[in-house]
């Protein structure tokens, strides 16, 4: 999954990066359709960031290519509507915004993002939840992978019905395990002196 690289941009203050990203996305959104040249300006800003921060453009493009089918799909769906926005403008806007967020993710660690949220006075409960989610997301992903593999090793019947039952069983067990782990984490927090 995404792991910020060790580039100079990683050291820029996180608040500036987040604010910059939001600002750029806003600008791209507000760019009126009859002025396509503005998109060029915004794309140039992104390139500048890439160069100044020495962020690898290959990685960014690769992620963009991976995510773009969704955008393309949505844009084409909107293409049915002649009363709506031109699908090419849509795709361009979306693509540029996507690139912005990808670059943000490449240059900012999750911890930094949480720091920005903390500065923005986001409630502590939400920050704790975000932190714990990020911490255990990989643990649970590995667990679900193991359960899925164990299941398929024991499944000899093909067919969608069994696949659904197996998948649902994995999801159900994942929740059960997540709940149990949450209790143990609470114990571990208390063991080191945490008081709510």
């Amino acid at each position, binding site marked *: 999954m995404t792991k910020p690289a060790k580039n100079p941009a990683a050291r820029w203050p996180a608040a500036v990066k987040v604010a910059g990203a939001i600002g750029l996305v806003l600008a791209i959104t507000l760019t009126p359709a009859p002025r396509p040249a503005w998109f060029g300006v915004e794309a140039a800003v992104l390139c500048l960031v890439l160069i100044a921060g020495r962020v690898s453009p290959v990685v960014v493009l690769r992620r963009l290519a991976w995510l773009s089918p969704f955008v393309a799909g949505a844009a084409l769906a909107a293409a049915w509507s002649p009363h709506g926005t031109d699908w090419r403008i849509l795709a361009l806007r979306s693509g540029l915004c996507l690139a912005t967020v990808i670059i943000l993710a490449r240059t900012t660690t*999750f*911890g930094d993002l*949480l720091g920005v949220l903390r500065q923005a006075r986001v409630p502590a409960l939400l920050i704790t939840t975000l*932190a*714990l989610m*990020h*911490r*255990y997301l*990989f*643990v649970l992903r590995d667990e679900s992978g193991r359960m899925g593999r164990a299941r398929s090793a024991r499944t000899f019947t093909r067919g969608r019905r069994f696949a659904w039952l197996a998948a649902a069983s994995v999801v159900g067990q994942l929740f059960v395990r997540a709940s149990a*782990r949450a209790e*143990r*984490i609470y*114990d*571990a*927090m*208390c*063991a*080191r*002196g*945490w*008081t709510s």
Partner: protein
Amino acid sequence: MSTAIDVRQLGFRYPDGTAALADISFGIEAGECVGLLGPNGSGKSTLLRHLNGILPERLPARDGSIRIEGKLVSDENVATVRRRTGLLFQDPDDQLFCGTVQEDVAFGPRQLGLEPAECERRTREALEQVGLTHLAQRPPHHLSAGEKRRACLAGVLACTPGILALDEPTSGLDPRGRRELMALLRGIPATKLIATHDLEFVVELCPRSLLLDGGRVIADGATENLLNDEALMLAHGLERPHILQHRHPHVGDLVFDAATHK
């Protein structure tokens, strides 16, 4: 020597009525390293959680008493008890709940209300002690099992506890991780109670052991005597470890050399 842990007639039941611990009594002197042996379900983890004050807080069904360094473990004393007893959980992922190793090790000192400079100092020292200074900024899921275990230990050591209670510390470790942990634990002067299935680990680290089964203390004595009693071992779901069965001269030397090296 003062009594670090004093347990008298400890009994404990789960809400559905099943008895987890019954009539447990033992005492551990400061600085001792004691093994806690027993088959699965014997109550080892439950007992350890009592030492840290976690269990009674949740489920108040407890008889008997526990004294940690002379203080009775009760609702009023919970904070003090937790300061003095460090608990190492079975699954290091449960214990490493912060975003980076450094944050996690600093968690304990922060909860103790220490000054930021002091927190930083303790964190640095704890990381040095376990040899993880170079991994301080790493997120926990990028660590190996051995590194995670050491990070947990650092987190506990940062609170400078007098007593360490470890729950299956060698599970999931490869031989190198195991050796590193053993060497680390030898260097820590705190009172240690180690619950484990790793009988060879116990032989090398703990001169004395307690045998638990069905929530009761079956035996309490010198580790070698306990483990050499084959009938006793087999009766309680254990076995005589190989290290005692096949005593090669050089292995024997290694064991004793390391033990007296302190």
